[in-house]
């Protein structure tokens, strides 16, 4: 029987003990995808051939009696903005229609080298711009806990697949909450690592100073396992810092006496059921011997507009490369090159992406640069300082991941600003380059999961995952609820 609180270790034991072959396991996942993906819309590309080829290698290795690497033979998925050689990478945008990368992202290379079994690429908001996965050109991904609700975004497909038992784990990317928010909405664990911990080489850029790749899993141990395998120095990413991924061996460290910071700014405007779950989590930590410390983060007030200004500015520059000349969609008819580029971009990008490009271009344009971009950069400096000072008084910060539970489908398209407000709790972590993990901590109306966030100091992944794992143990994993459907083992 598969242990939902240690899924990767459990699956590897089954493989080692020959209770199931890797080919059988992979085929079982592929069959489950064929059956359940039409209702979840988690995958946008299935890769059965690559998956079965990797599985065969694993079975041959097992037959030779060789040891398996940490993630070897485990069926998994990648968000569709992580480049995969010879496998389409669309960012769920029409503009990347038909694009097939000629190289692998470093994270995928690291996993592929140890025979990770890639089941397919998963759905996302177009170019990772959104909170519901609904800006995807393939339509949104459903929440496995309630199919009328969204899986969240932008890594909604990964969360939908992992939560729907259509992959053991997945890698997403997080620019303003895109790993933690869907993890929270789908009752999963999602880690946004410290900026520079995981290589961004091969991750299609949205906002380069904020983007990080990280895991989405069903439990904390799996997140630690995956993070430890992808946290590597990479000369191909000039912001790579070369930290040691060493979180797994610290999961069981005692937490008694650890100081957990509570900022009132994070507790404003929460839906009552979320507030109650966070208060309960605080009590759990107190009962575990942690000390709750009041901290103040006044600069948080400006985090959201600062984030949108900087993210859109960087996006407007990064997305300048889509001109229809070298890859992807190209307009069918045009008068000259300028006309071709404009027509390609106007028809290739969706409305939300165009809005963000326009806002980014506006805040960078002559006459507005100082009032918006420069001012936002300076306020970013203040927010960074505020968090640095807070960590003089605490070891980690506890906050909600999202002020509410998953939205009903279609909710987010009505008012862009209202949608942006839902990112209020997640964006500060990206602004400051800090690690943040979302773990399940309750259920709200209609059985929708509630998540909480543990924010650590720079390269404090081991500390926050230790606190997260101990919470999961203390609550007996009652919030890591496995839904029906998908792989049944």
């Amino acid at each position, binding site marked *: 029987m598969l242990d939902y609180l240690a899924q990767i270790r459990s699956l590897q034991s089954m493989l080692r003990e020959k209770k199931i072959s890797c080919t059988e396991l992979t085929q079982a996942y592929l069959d489950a995808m064929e059956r359940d993906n039409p209702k979840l819309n988690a995958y946008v590309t299935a890769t059965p051939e690559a998956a079965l080829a990797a599985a065969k290698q694993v079975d041959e290795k097992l037959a030779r009696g060789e040891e398996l690497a940490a993630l070897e033979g485990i069926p998994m998925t990648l968000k569709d903005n992580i480049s995969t050689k010879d496998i389409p990478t669309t960012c769920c945008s029409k503009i990347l229609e*038909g*694009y*097939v990368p*000629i190289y692998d992202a470093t994270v995928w290379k690291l996993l592929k080298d140890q025979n990770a079994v890639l089941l397919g690429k998963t759905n996302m908001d177009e170019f990772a711009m959104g909170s519901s996965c609904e800006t995807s050109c393939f339509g949104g991904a459903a929440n496995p806990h309630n199919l009328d609700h969204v899986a969240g975004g932008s890594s909604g497909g990964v969360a939908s697949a992992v939560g729907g038992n259509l992959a053991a784990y997945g890698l997403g990317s997080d620019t303003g909450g895109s790993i933690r928010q869907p993890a929270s909405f789908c009752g999963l664990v999602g880690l946004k690592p*410290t*900026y*520079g911990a995981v290589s961004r080489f091969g991750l299609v850029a949205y906002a380069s*100073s904020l983007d990080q790749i990280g895991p989405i899993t069903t439990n904390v141990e799996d997140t630690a396992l995956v993070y430890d395998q992808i946290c590597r120095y990479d000369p191909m990413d*000039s*912001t790579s*810092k070369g930290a040691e991924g060493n979180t797994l061996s610290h999961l069981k460290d005692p937490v008694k006496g650890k100081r957990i910071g509570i900022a009132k700014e994070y507790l404003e405007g929460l839906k009552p059921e979320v507030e109650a779950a966070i208060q309960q989590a605080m009590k759990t930590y107190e009962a575990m011997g942690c000390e709750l410390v009041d901290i103040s983060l006044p600069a948080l007030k*400006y985090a959201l*507009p*600062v984030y*949108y*200004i900087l993210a859109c500015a960087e996006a407007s520059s990064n997305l*300048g490369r889509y*001109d229809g*000349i*070298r*890859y*992807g969609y190209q*307009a069918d*008819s*045009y*008068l*000259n*090159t*300028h*006309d*071709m*580029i404009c027509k390609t*971009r*106007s028809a290739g*990008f969706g409305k939300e992406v*165009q*809005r963000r490009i*326009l*806002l980014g*271009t*506006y*805040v960078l*344009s002559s006459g507005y640069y100082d*009032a*918006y971009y420069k*001012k*936002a*950069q*300076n*306020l*970013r*400096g*203040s927010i*960074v*300082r505020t968090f640095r000072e807070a960590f003089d008084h605490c070891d980690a910060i506890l906050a909600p991941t999202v002020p509410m539970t998953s939205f009903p489908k279609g909710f987010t398209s009505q008012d*862009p*600003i209202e949608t*942006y407000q839902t990112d209020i709790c997640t964006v500060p972590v990206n602004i*400051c380059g800090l690690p943040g993990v979302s773990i399940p901590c309750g259920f709200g109306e209609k059985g929708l999961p509630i998540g909480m966030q543990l924010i650590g100091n*720079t390269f404090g992944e081991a500390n926050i995952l230790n606190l997260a794992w101990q919470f999961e143990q203390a609550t007996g994993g009652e919030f890591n609820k496995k839904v029906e459907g998908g792989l049944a083992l």
Partner: protein
Amino acid sequence: MVTREEIENIALLSKLFVAEEELDGLTKEMDQMIAFADTINQATDAGEEFDNINGLQNAFREDEVVPSYPQSEILKNRDGGVDGFFYVAKHK
């Protein structure tokens, strides 16, 4: 208040066409978004110089020649190109 003309100009800089019938709606949306962005100018905090998040400094290395991706691979996403180049018809 953002004007239609400003949005037209920003769209041109962004290499995006906005259809005439969409311009009013887009101007309204952009006005809301810019008003939202403008809330940072209410901050009394002047902020502080910010360069990059993890204290990076320029690091120079020897300029070593390493293999590049073959031209044929790079051109794969445009049907192999023409004579080793990307090809774009003048008009279509």
